[in-house]
């Protein structure tokens, strides 16, 4: 252990601890900007965390400076405060000054730091920012390099967590910036649109594409019958947009808010998640019985799908042909629902609320129009819905609980856990077990596939099928490890679930900010609570609305209509 003093207070920490960390132990919070604890990312780039040290003539960056025996540190002397302010002034001098117009306004860490260190004027010349170009080439994300402060968090998350390695610092000096490889626009690159870079970016340099105006326009159009679906994870995230505790389950208030915004029908993606399980579960059984391509891999996550299309094209035949719940919802809404509601499908406008940026891209994929129309018209993220609710002046926290509309709002507990890593697997196994044995699984909670371990495995006896071996991974870097093993032929799984984002969709690119692993855990717990305590039906094949859909419209899983509406194919895209 090392003994030192910080602001004349004694502190004892293990060797190798940084000054920043040591200060935190005694509740002194030195301001930081480039550092990102969750990624263990301390590039020492921004110099906001400067402190005075008796061992050094110049100020030191506390986030990378290790403690030493007897060292004396001062964190807010006159000298320190002046230097910090100068550092932030310098950052601001090379940054746009129209915060009011920025999508990150109010959630920006650069704003917060400027406030914390008390910048009131900028004494250096502002640089010309016209050298930068906005990249709005993709449906999912918008890059505004003029707002980049070069913290390299996005580079770290894209490489270490996602294994995509697309973003990189490039150039040097005045020309230095962070860009996709070859300076490509995102739409021309192998970006998966997972949005994890937007989650960690402290400023407005990478943000979700804001589509809220398109939703407002549809709501204002009397000709349109506007229906909305919300992904499982949204009900476990949305409360945070309004200051509620992480892990608050706000299903009823979310539904009330959506009604007040003016949606004609408030349905639920969870309904379509149950539908996905019916199709995907039967597809798995068919592949196992008929010696089809195994392991079968889930296809709910568009980030994962694009990742396979770019990096593992040889595994495309392993992907389930099932569309994601979002897209199944759209295809059913503009056919079956149009029919039973007596609405012309051309007037139906489907809005999705997703924890996800990649879903924006998925809805825009050219093949996603099997209903004869664009199946899903607009996708907005949890953050964007938060913006709309605030824009409408609704006091979310005091809204009463309301219930979804039938029939496409009804869902089972199996549908709701899709939002957490392992949830699709658990839901599928519940139904596969029942289809094969005719009985409900003795214990519906499959603990082995829950939780935040990067790769999880389980083996389950499923009646006459024998042992079914499964694996689950989240975060594309973990998926990569698993896929390399599949390609090497060293695995014998039947079924693999992959979610691109850490923790699954609860940690999606559209989640409320700031993110943390603790929040992932709490949000997942909320979904498991919804499954175990709130929903009466916990298996997809027991959802009465799903049974009615098959009886009156689809007839049978993998049937003729299902093939036309609910299944899809994939495209090899090159690295």
């Amino acid at each position: 252990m090392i003994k030192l003093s910080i602001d004349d207070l004694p502190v004892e920490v293990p060797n190798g601890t940084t000054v920043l960390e040591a200060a935190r132990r005694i509740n002194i919070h030195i301001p930081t900007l480039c550092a990102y604890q969750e990624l263990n990312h301390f590039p020492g780039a921004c110099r906001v965390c400067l402190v005075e040290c008796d061992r050094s003539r110049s100020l030191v960056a506390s986030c990378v400076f290790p403690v030493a025996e007897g060292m004396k540190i001062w964190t807010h002397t006159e000298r320190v405060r002046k230097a910090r302010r100068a550092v932030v002034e310098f950052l601001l001098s090379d940054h746009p000054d129209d915060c009011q117009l920025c999508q990150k306004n109010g959630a920006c860490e650069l704003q917060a730091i400027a406030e914390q260190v008390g910048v009131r004027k900028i004494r250096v010349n502002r640089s010309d920012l016209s050298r930068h170009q906005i990249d709005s080439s993709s449906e999912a994300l918008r890059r505004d390099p003029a707002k980049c402060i070069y913290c390299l968090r996005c580079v770290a998350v894209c490489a270490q967590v996602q294994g995509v390695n697309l973003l990189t610092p490039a150039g040097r000096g005045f020309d230095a910036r962070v860009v996709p490889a070859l300076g490509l626009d995102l739409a021309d690159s192998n970006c998966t649109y997972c949005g994890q870079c937007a989650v960690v970016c402290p400023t407005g340099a990478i943000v979700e594409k804001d589509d809220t105006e398109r939703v407002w326009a549809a709501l204002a159009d009397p000709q349109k019958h506007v229906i909305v679906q919300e992904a499982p994870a949204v009900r476990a995230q949305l409360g945070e947009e309004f200051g509620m505790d992480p892990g608050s389950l706000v299903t009823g208030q979310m539904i009330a808010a959506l009604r007040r915004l003016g949606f004609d029908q408030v349905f639920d993606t969870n309904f379509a998640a149950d539908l996905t399980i019916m199709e995907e579960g039967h597809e798995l059984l068919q592949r196992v019985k008929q010696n089809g391509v195994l392991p079968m891999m889930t296809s709910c996550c568009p980030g994962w799908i694009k990742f396979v299309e770019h990096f593992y094209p040889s595994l495309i035949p392993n992907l389930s042909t099932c569309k994601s719940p979002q897209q199944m919802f759209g295809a059913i809404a503009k056919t079956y629902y149009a029919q039973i509601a007596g609405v012309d499908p051309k007037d139906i406008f489907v809005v999705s609320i997703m924890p996800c940026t990649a879903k924006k891209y998925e809805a825009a994929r050219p093949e996603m129009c099997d209903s004869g129309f664009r199946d899903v018209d607009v996708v907005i993220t949890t953050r964007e819905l938060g913006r709309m609710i605030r824009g409408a002046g609704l006091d979310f926290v005091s809204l009463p609980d309301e219930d979804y509309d039938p029939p496409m709002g009804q869902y089972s507990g199996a549908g709701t856990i899709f939002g957490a890593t392992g949830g699709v697997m658990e839901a599928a196994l519940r139904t596969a077990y029942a289809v094969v044995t005719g009985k409900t699984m003795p214990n519906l909670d499959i603990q082995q596939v829950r939780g935040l371990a990067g790769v999880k495995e389980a083996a389950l006896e499923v009646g006459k099928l024998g042992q079914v071996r499964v694996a689950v991974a989240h975060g594309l870097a973990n998926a990569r490890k698993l896929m390399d093993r599949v390609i090497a032929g060293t695995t014998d799984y039947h079924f693999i679930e992959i979610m691109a984002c850490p923790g699954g969709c609860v940690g999606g690119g559209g989640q409320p900010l700031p993110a943390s692993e603790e929040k992932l855990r709490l949000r997942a717990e909320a979904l498991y609570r919804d499954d175990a305590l709130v929903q009466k039906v916990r298996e997809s094949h027991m959802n009465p609305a799903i049974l009615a859909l098959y009886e009156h419209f689809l007839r049978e899983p993998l049937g003729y209509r299902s093939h036309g509406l609910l299944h899809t194919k994939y495209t090899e895209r090159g690295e």
Partner: protein
Amino acid sequence: MERVEESSGAEFSAQQWQDVDGIIDQHRGQPGALIPVLEEVQAVTGYLPAVVQRRVARGLGLPLSRVYGVVTFYSFFTMKPRGRHQIRICTGTACHVRGAQRNVNQLKTSLGIEIGECTDDREFGLETVRCLGACGLAPVLVIDQDTHRQVKKEQLPQILRQYQGAAEVSEG
């Protein structure tokens, strides 16, 4: 960041590609191989366009972003073809004061290219450089190994003509 044009790589001969692959093979698996590989490859291909960067990345098993990051960091790597005659204009303070910018503009118009580019026939390439340390001779420009001193924009067509092969240079 300058955007790299994607091309098929047809401009390089089979022999050039073979040499490139040979260089990659020689260094594969060595730590720190990237920079020497890029140097040797650039000596073969003349410059490092997207196709070449992709080939190096795949060959060494490195992310393309790593290769691109290194190529843009070191000024001796170039992603644009260089001309047979490379024109380097000093834009240091002394040259700037004495009208270097006029020369830059004149050359851009008469060659029809931007800084960092070269003419379609690859005859001339144009770049600006920081102070060449010849401030007494400002404004200075260097073509290949020759230093041209106190250059006025009216003299430029004349100067270019000395280097010109078949290529036409319009007098703008």
